[in-house]
């Protein structure tokens, strides 16, 4: 597939005093895709996002958006980007609708056009009933939707979503997923950071996994799962006999002991664990599909980051 590169980073680095937040990374984002940046807290995802929309200057390296360098013409880049930041920063001094129209004014959108777009956004994000309510009265999910609406007010080509569903209930999360999918369909290029691997698997065409300021792996969610953890995972309660049986039956399989559970990752196709269960009948065993979370934990480890 030949695609147009929309965002490109070469040797991109960001330092805060002595701390290297983003360490000499290269990546490309293609027009029309949804690209996920995954990584533990402090991996450098948000810093990378902030450099893309020109609010943080890179320490060194090259970063271009639609061929424009972030250090040369930030205004033109910011005009084509919509941002949903990790931290809620809606304007508490204004109502829901005014948040959108005032924001539109920052983009030089004429008043009548701003009003039209704001009303359309409220409809799209099911916020019409909250039109004249002040921000403090919105639920977390509504605030998130309003932030997304605000990010779209300038009709951006690129949408940066920094943890757009953190802290939301499943209903709110699915609504946001629906909207993100429909935006993708309409041709918007999306960069998404998230801690939810199901979200990344659901929405992203391609994911980049970051850790300690570096990109350590990249690929489509399915490819990454196949490459790093295989097809199926079996989990069994820890038991010396079980370990012995597994080692005996699946000498190739990767074994991981997490707390009092054993995880077995097999690269063979589905169904390989059936024979284990025949020899070792236990009710504690579960077999499930391998997923992106397995990949994530394998690559970034289980150590807590904060």
């Amino acid at each position: 597939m030949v695609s147009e590169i929309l965002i490109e980073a070469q040797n991109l680095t960001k330092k805060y005093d002595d701390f290297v937040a983003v360490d000499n990374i290269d990546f490309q984002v293609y027009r029309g895709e949804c690209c996920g940046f995954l990584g533990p807290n402090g991996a450098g995802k948000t810093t990378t996002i902030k450099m893309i929309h020109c609010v943080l200057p890179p320490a060194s390296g090259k970063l271009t958006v639609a061929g424009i360098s972030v250090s040369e013409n930030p205004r033109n880049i910011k005009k084509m980007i919509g941002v949903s930041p990790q931290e809620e920063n809606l304007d508490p001094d204004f109502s829901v609708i005014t948040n959108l129209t005032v924001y539109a004014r920052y983009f030089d959108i004429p008043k009548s056009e701003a009003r039209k777009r704001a009303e359309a956004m409220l409809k799209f994000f099911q916020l019409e009933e909250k039109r004249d309510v002040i921000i403090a009265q919105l639920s977390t999910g509504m605030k998130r939707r309003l932030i997304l609406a605000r990010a779209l007010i300038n009709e951006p080509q690129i949408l940066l979503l920094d943890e757009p569903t953190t802290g939301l209930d499943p209903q709110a999360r699915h609504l946001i997923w629906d909207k993100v999918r429909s935006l993708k369909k309409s041709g918007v290029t999306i960069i998404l950071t998230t801690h939810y691997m199901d979200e990344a698997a659901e929405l992203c065409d391609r994911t980049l996994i970051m850790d300690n300021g570096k990109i350590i792996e990249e690929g489509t969610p399915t490819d990454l799962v196949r490459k790093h953890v295989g097809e199926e995972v079996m989990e069994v309660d820890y038991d010396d006999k079980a370990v012995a049986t597994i080692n005996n039956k699946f000498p190739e399989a990767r074994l991981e002991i997490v707390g009092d559970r054993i995880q077995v990752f097999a690269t063979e196709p589905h169904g390989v664990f059936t024979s284990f269960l025949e020899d070792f009948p236990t009710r504690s065993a579960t077999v499930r599909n391998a997923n992106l979370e397995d990949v994530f934990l394998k690559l970034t480890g289980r150590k807590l980051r904060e």
Partner: protein
Amino acid sequence: MKRSNRVASSFKLPELTYRVWKVWRRNFDVFMKTYKVNFFPPLLEPIFYLLAMGFGLGSFISAVQLGYPYIKFIAPALVSISIMYSAFFECTYGSFVRMYYQKTFDAIITTPISIEEVIAGELFWGATRSLISSSIVLAVVAAFGLISSPLVLLIPIVAFFAGLMFSAIAMCFTALAPNIDFFNYPGFLFITPMFLLSGTFFPLTILPQFMQILAQAVLPLTHTVILARGLMFGNFESTMLLSIVWIGVVTLAFFLLSINQMKKKLIK
């Protein structure tokens, strides 16, 4: 050009566009939402001062020494103090809340508006607050019959520029502030002494010589009061030109300094 930039790498002239106005407009819109509440303090406060200090304290002070009633002496000081207070509070507590608690600056710099323009917009808004408040005070003072010259119509211009000066000084404190309680220090150590010692409630000439010099050299309110008093009484003196220059230079210096310092604080 390149070289001079490198020499002054930590200090740059801000590139400001018409977008400064959009930041100003945001604050104006918020102000207008609650304008009735906002108009009250500048309306009531001078009335209390005029009653307590003008009529009350003033009755102990012989009009012979001044050549006119004491209440007339403090009227321009009240206008000047409102210029100082409104700008100072707007660009310390007000700006800090918008920057730190509300994350309003973060939201705005995601749009084509730059951080320099955000800060400049805040400064011009602070100046506008000074203009609004002092105009209300002026109206109160006029209602008390304390104005004797049409030159008083120039006071709003002084209010805007002196307000810009106080805003820029305040913004430098905001750039330094690790938290909102920090503003108690400039409040006690800078604003209160100025409130009392800038030729506000008694003529500077009563002070010891070195304090007179000090008040004129470092206290911005001194020069604001000199201009307000001159315009209100209708006697334009040459010392007023010095005050105009003083305010101009200090305003420009702190305008540039505050934008640079805030940028350094916010864009790491």
